[in-house]
């Protein structure tokens, strides 16, 4: 059976499915219980599974993540929510110092099946700190996996995979497109592989790698291009990165553009360029390019339209790359 749902519903359904199948899965965070989260990603779950499995916490992100470490050690699979990615920073110490390290610290004796969910990204005309995209900071931490879906189907399958993963996963949800479109998605649980990118469109002239909320923008841009054959790769997992899919594509096209919303410098785009250089240098017919957010704080709403690369800018950049 399938149902037509959007991304935020897919997140909810993934949780609902896994909580039904596995009694050790619990979900908690700020406002996730009674109201089902500020984006309604956990709506209905407390009613269905009770306050012991879906609950609100005090306003303390470090405690939310840190207690999840303890919960995971003691037999649960916690899926915790950071209300916005901009509020994940109080929990960074827990993530870097413990979440990422327990398996190695104990030489495999203890491991942490836990998921940290956070809506990320801008473009929703929000206050400061509600528009962050700092996936690169977390991707740099050995021991953390970082996943970003871009469709309801992927969101559900990847979140289920993250919950089933014996190791911790940072699951970033593209809030700008939470409700942008619906997709037919199986009602039952299914898992998609973490660490695998997806070729959304095959092409032979230019490879575009992107993820999350930028995917529809890239698709829109490419839809307006008849004269260049563009291959679109949805990275889906930032770390560990699917180098193979990227490299194979560049071996074919010789040209690569990375589009992301995060600030440019030291962003995930840089890693992709480094990988392409290391693995497909001789195939490169043009310099790998990046089209990204600026090296600035995400502007408040009256300036935000400038920050996220628009389809027009993406098209422009693809043309620049193809013409090189």
């Amino acid at each position, binding site marked *: 059976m399938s149902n037509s749902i959007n991304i935020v519903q897919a997140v909810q359904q993934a949780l609902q499915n896994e909580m039904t199948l596995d009694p050790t899965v619990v979900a908690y965070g700020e406002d996730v219980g009674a109201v089902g989260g500020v984006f309604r990603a956990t709506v209905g779950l407390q009613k269905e599974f009770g306050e012991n499995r879906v609950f609100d916490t005090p306003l303390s992100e470090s405690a939310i993540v840190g207690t999840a470490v303890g919960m995971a050690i003691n037999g649960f699979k916690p899926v915790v929510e950071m209300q916005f990615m901009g509020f994940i920073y109080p929990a960074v110490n827990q993530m870097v110092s413990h979440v990422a390290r327990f398996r190695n610290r104990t030489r495999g004796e203890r491991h942490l099946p836990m998921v940290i969910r956070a809506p990320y990204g801008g473009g929703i005309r929000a206050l400061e700190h509600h528009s962050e995209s700092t996936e690169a900071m977390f991707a740099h931490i050995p021991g953390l996996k970082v996943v970003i879906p871009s469709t309801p189907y992927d969101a559900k399958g990847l979140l289920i995979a993250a919950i089933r993963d014996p190791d911790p996963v940072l699951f970033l949800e593209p809030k700008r497109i939470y409700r942008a479109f619906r997709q037919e998605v199986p009602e039952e649980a299914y898992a998609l592989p973490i660490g695998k990118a997806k070729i959304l469109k095959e092409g032979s002239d230019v490879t575009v790698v992107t993820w999350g909320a930028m995917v529809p923008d890239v698709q829109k841009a490419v839809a307006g291009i008849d004269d260049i054959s563009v291959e679109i790769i949805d990275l889906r997992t930032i770390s560990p990165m699917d180098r193979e899919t990227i490299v194979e594509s560049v071996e074919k096209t010789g040209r690569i553009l990375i589009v992301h919303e995060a600030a*440019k410098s030291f962003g995930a785009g840089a890693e992709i360029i480094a990988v392409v250089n290391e693995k497909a240098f001789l195939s490169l017919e043009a310099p790998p390019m990046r089209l990204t957010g600026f090296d600035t704080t995400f*502007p408040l709403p009256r300036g935000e339209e400038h*920050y996220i690369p628009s389809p027009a800018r993406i098209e422009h950049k693809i043309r620049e790359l193809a013409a090189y």
Partner: protein
Amino acid sequence: MQIDKFNPLEDEMIQVMDEKGEIINPELMPELTEEEMLHLYHTMRKARTIDSVALSLQRQGRMLTYASNLGQEGAQVGSGYALKETDWAVPAFRELGMWLIKGWPVEKILQYWYGSEWGSHMGKELRLLPISVPISSHFQHAAGIALASKLRGEKDVTIAYTGDGGTSQGDFHEALNFAAVFKTPNVFFIQNNQFAISVPRSKQTASKNLAMKAIAYGMPGIHVDGNDIFAVLAVTRAAVEYARENGPVLIEAHTYRMGAHTTSDDPTKYRTDSDVNPWKAKDPVLRLENYLMKKGVLTEEDIHALTEPLEKEVMDAYKSIEFSSDTKVEEIFAYHYEEMTPQLQDQLDEYQAFLKGAESDV
């Protein structure tokens, strides 16, 4: 009032004026001229007007997310009025009444909520920090500002605001502990409005009240009726004077968020009318109104006469920024460092070239 003689363990709450506007605790009644009282009343009304104008503009799509202050004006205006001009104030994001007292221009306040950084370019001399969104993180700044004052031998006090939810953050704890160790001139002011978005106070912490958290830091704590502007002013004045000479004080103002958390929130999901209704009788504006009417310095007529000019003032302020607040491209880049880095310059140039090209394409 001797602030360090109050026992926050007893869970009593300081009141000066009851719900009908009667002074029930005259010995704590703050010294105020009639003019000052009217100024307080006027400021509360102005706050309420800004609130309702902003909410209605928001519904019309002319304003972005907005956090209502309805019901908390007593705590905000009362505490703000206890400060000297040279004292510092470090807000969270729901302190409209205090901002007005401190002098943040109305059009700037609206410009902030309208989505422009220029709203926070408010005048350095106000000694008021901009809104701080990450809960309680600004408590650290307040401790640092106060330490700086103290190290220079100045007597300025720094007041910082957070909510009941804010008391759960690590930064709340670290800032209070730091301030107490260095005996900095700080007043830490909790607006306990009973909710952190949907999470009720009872699920936020297991302590009987929030004022008693002061004990953990070896500082005085005091619990006050936040809807009683006289009590808030009396307590905050005492706290400010104590802090000026001795070190930090924690205040919990007991109040209620009558509206939604912000315009993105739907409070019917987590509370009922019967939760809210009892608080209507405690309304801080009505209470002061009653008092002033009984005192004969305010009439029904005065009350009504205020409405229109206030609405006009606020709407005029809004109109002065409505169409002039779009961010210029350069502004996004210009304020990250004293000098723009070459990276930023490149990115700005590339984007402007694109914009130019796109224009000429048309």
